[in-house]
C-alpha cells in the first residue's frame, strides 16, 4: 500500500499550484483512494473525485501555500465525502434507496468467486460498523488501518495533535470491536 509519508508530501512550493492539470496528474489517484476508503462502498468514487477537483479548480487562486498541498487536498476530499455520505443518508431516509441494502448485500447474492465475495462482504461489514462511529473516530481508524498512515501523517492531514490521534484511535478501536460483535451477534 503506498502510504503517504510526510517526506513524500510535496511542500507547497514544490508543486505548480496554479496548474490544475499538474495537481490532477499528481494527486487524482491518491484522492480517489482517500475517497474510496473514507466513503466506503456506497460512495461514487468518480463523482467524489470530480467534485474534489472542481473545488480545487475554484479555490486554487486562493491557495497561499500555508498548508501542504496534500493536507489541503485531503481536507477537501474529507468534506466532499462527508457531504456525499450525508446525501446518501438523506436519500435512504427518504426511501429512495431500499432499506436494508447493506444487510441484503451481506448475503451471497449470486455465484461469484469466493474471494471476491468475501472481499465484498468484508468491505460491507467494515463500513456497516464504521458508519456507526462518530466521525472523528471513523476518520482516524480509516486512515490508520485502510490508508496505513502513521500517527504523524494522520495528525498532519487532519490537523489534530499526535496525542489526540492515538486517543481517538484507541477509542475508535474499542467502539469498532464492540459494534462489530454486536453486528455479528445480531446476524441470524
Amino acid at each position: 500500500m503506498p502510504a503517504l509519508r510526510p517526506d513524500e508530501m510535496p511542500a507547497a512550493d514544490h508543486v505548480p499550484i496554479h496548474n490544475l492539470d499538474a495537481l490532477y496528474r499528481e494527486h487524482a489517484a491518491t484522492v480517489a483512494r482517500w475517497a474510496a476508503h473514507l466513503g466506503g462502498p456506497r460512495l461514487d468514487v468518480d463523482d467524489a473525485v470530480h467534485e474534489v477537483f472542481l473545488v480545487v479548480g475554484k479555490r486554487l487562486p486562493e491557495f497561499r501555500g500555508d498548508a501542504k498541498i496534500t493536507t489541503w487536498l485531503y481536507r477537501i476530499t474529507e468534506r466532499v465525502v462527508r457531504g456525499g455520505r450525508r446525501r446518501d443518508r438523506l436519500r435512504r431516509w427518504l426511501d429512495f434507496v431500499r432499506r436494508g441494502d447493506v444487510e441484503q448485500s451481506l448475503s451471497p447474492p449470486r455465484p461469484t468467486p469466493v474471494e471476491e465475495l468475501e472481499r465484498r462482504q468484508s468491505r460491507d461489514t467494515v463500513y456497516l460498523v464504521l458508519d456507526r462511529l462518530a466521525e472523528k473516530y471513523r476518520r482516524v481508524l480509516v486512515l490508520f488501518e485502510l490508508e496505513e498512515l502513521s500517527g504523524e501523517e494522520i495528525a498532519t492531514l487532519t490537523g489534530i495533535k499526535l496525542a489526540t490521534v492515538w486517543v481517538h484511535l484507541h477509542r475508535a478501536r474499542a467502539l469498532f470491536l464492540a459494534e462489530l460483535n454486536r453486528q455479528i451477534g445480531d446476524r441470524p
Partner: protein
Amino acid sequence: MKPPERWTTRCAHEPNDDDEARAGRLFRRAIVKQPLDTGALAEIRARLPDETRAQPRPLVLSVAVAIVLFLCGGAVVMSATLLGHWSPFRGAPADAPAAVMPAPPHHARVAPVAEPVADPAPVRPLKVVRRAEAPVEDAPAAPDRAPPVAAEPPRPSAIAREAAVLGAALQKLRDEGDAAGALALLDAHDAEFAATGLLADEAGTTRVEALLRLGQRARALALLDARVLPPSGRARALLASRGELRADAGRGAEARADFDALLSDDALDDDVIERALFGRAACRARAGDANGARSDLDAYLARFPDGRYATRARASLGR
C-alpha cells in the same frame, strides 16, 4: 508513545482468532488499492472545466448579495406596509409629486402632529405625514415620463435562473406528467443557456426522459448517441437506456457494448445491473449466441429471482 500495531498487520502473522485479528482480516479485505483506473481518471479530468474559466467567488457572492438585498428590500417594504406607511406598490418614485399617490384610507392613518407645511410642493413619499397634509388638488401633475414603479429586486444570477427553468421542466415532467410542456421549457432553457449552461447535462437527461415518455425513442436515442456516457455515477442509468434503445433499433453490437460496459463493474445489485444483464442476454440471443444468453439469464435469475424480467427469463430458459 509507542504507536499501536495495526490490526491489518497483526492478523497476517498471528494465527489466533481473537476480535482484533478478525477485525484485521476484515480491514485487509476492505483496502482498495486503486479505486479508479487511468481511463476513469482521464474521463473525470475531461469533465472538469478549465481552471481559468472557474470564477466561483463572483458568482457565489453575487447570488448571496442578490438574496440579501432582495430579503432586506422585502422586509423594509413589508414593515412599512404593515405600519401603514409608504408602499412602493402604490407609490411613486422618491421625487415624484405626492398628488399621484392615492390617499391612504383615513382609518389607517395616524393623526399627524401639527406641523405647518409651508410648501405644498412635491414631497418625498416616505414622509407620509407631510404628504397627507398636502392638498391633492394643489399638487402638480405627475410627469408622463416618470411612471410610478417599485424598485426592482436584483435580477437573479444566471445559474439561479437556469436552475429555476430546469426545476420547472422537471416539475412539469414528473409532477404534472406533462412531457410536452417539459420539452417546451427545455427548449427555452437551451435557447437561453446553450452556450453557458452549467446544467446542460441535467437538461439533456431530462430531455431524454421527456422524449421517452412521449414515445419519441429515435430522438431520445439520437441524443444519447451524441453523449459520452461513462459506466459510472449518474450516467449509468442513461447508459442502460441507450443500450435498450440501441437493441430495439437493431443495433445489437453497440447495445452489447453499452451493457458490457455496465457489467464490467457490477459491484452493485441495482436496477441498472438488472437491466444490463437482461438486455445483454437479449442481444446475445438475437446474435445467435445461445450459450451466452443462457449464461446471462442464469446469472440474472440468481441475482434477481423476483426481478421485473424474471418471468420472461424463466420462460426463455424453459423453466
